[in-house]
């Protein structure tokens, strides 16, 4: 479903699920602009026209504790999507996943993903998978990480085409996740992720922690080696490459 404007594609899709208006898996809300785009924990996602703002509805896994794995497969799908978009120069773009599910282009944030869990009145659990990709504009200020847009890297495409490629990529990785399990997604993420040993700094609710990247735990938690030993992090803002 395409809209010229929504408050937030995630908020709108959550409302639809909570109202139980005959929703089904694969339902996609796409808005040309958002008036109240959201990031992690109440942050604003600046949403001028020209970029991708979309939310896709997916059935939550039977074991709801594995639902966060969807964010990782989405990040892998976004990397593959950008890789497949037409570009004016021949050099392939350098794309990386940033824990848990941001996508960096040449080290700058080009996409953010916000999965939210929601239950419909019939008791079914869903994941609303919100995805923003900067095609032609970036936030001027207030970004939590240096931003970029595809157009700055000679990738000139439309939201419509990007969404078509993105849906195919999500479908591909969703099938692999459901048939082969998270190990495949974890490996795909690590292939596209930071180097082992890369400097990493994580903002936690009680302050920042710094150390080096030591991989992902079996459930996707970030493993970080610091002077105080290995830490397992399930929530936080990650900044790579900071002292």
């Amino acid at each position: 479903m395409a809209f010229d404007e929504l408050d937030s594609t995630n908020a709108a899709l959550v409302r639809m699920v909570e109202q139980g208006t005959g929703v089904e898996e694969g339902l996609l809300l796409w808005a040309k602009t958002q008036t109240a785009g959201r990031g992690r924990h109440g942050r604003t996602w600046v949403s001028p026209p020209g970029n991708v703002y979309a939310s896709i509805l997916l059935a939550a896994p039977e074991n709801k504790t594995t639902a966060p794995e969807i964010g990782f497969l989405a990040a892998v799908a976004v990397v593959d999507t950008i890789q497949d978009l037409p570009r004016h120069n021949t050099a392939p773009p350098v794309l990386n996943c940033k824990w848990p599910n941001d996508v960096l282009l040449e080290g700058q944030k080009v996409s953010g993903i916000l999965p939210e869990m929601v239950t419909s009145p019939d008791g079914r659990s869903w994941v609303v998978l919100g995805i923003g990709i900067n095609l032609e504009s970036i936030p001027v200020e207030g970004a939590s990480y240096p931003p970029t847009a595809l157009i700055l890297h000679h990738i000139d495409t439309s939201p419509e085409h990007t969404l078509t490629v993105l849906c195919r990529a999500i479908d591909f990785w969703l099938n692999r996740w459901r048939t082969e399990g998270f190990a495949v997604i974890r490996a795909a993420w690590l292939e596209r992720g930071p180097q082992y040993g890369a400097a990493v700094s994580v903002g936690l609710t009680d302050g920042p922690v710094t150390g080096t990247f030591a991989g992902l735990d079996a459930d996707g938690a970030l493993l970080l080696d610091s002077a105080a030993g290995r830490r397992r992090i399930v929530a936080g803002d990650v900044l790579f490459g900071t002292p």
Partner: protein
Amino acid sequence: MKKTKAKPAAKAAAKPVAKPGAKPAAKPAAGSIVKVDSSSQLDSKLVRQLAAVLNETGLTEIEYEMGGLRVRVARHAHQVGSFVPGPAPVMAQAAAVEAPKPLDAASHPGTVKSPMVGVGYLLPEPGAAPFIKVGDTVTEGQTLFLIEAMKTFNPVKAPRGGKVTKILIENGSPVEYGEPLVIIE
């Protein structure tokens, strides 16, 4: 040491062997819970020793009692069997320690437990008013907390209406699967 009892992991025929001189293990990882009865002084060396025993023996849980202080060291069962061997080195298992509490929140009928491992938030976003306060009356289906895991946000809803008598976590604190979050009576 008066009593040591240990539960073997799955079918492992491990014997409980709590060696007093066991080497201290790595610090409990982030996300582990350490709870102690305020009347007792927790011996962190003891906890580390028990954690080391846990790692050595492959057990999932050790309970230790001495002079009225009971310490239970457990590692999360779902992490024990599910670690995928790969380039990442195996982390030190998180240890959880609990002492007996006068009110057993885990078995209280009004307890709402965490549906997942993550970080619990009492506020919808920083600076906002909390979802609930002690003394509030909540209705079934009302959002009580948000649990974040890997940036996936999961609202915890009230399974029934009632009065909030106790909130058991702090904003931004790590929560384990099944950890009591709130009591609604």
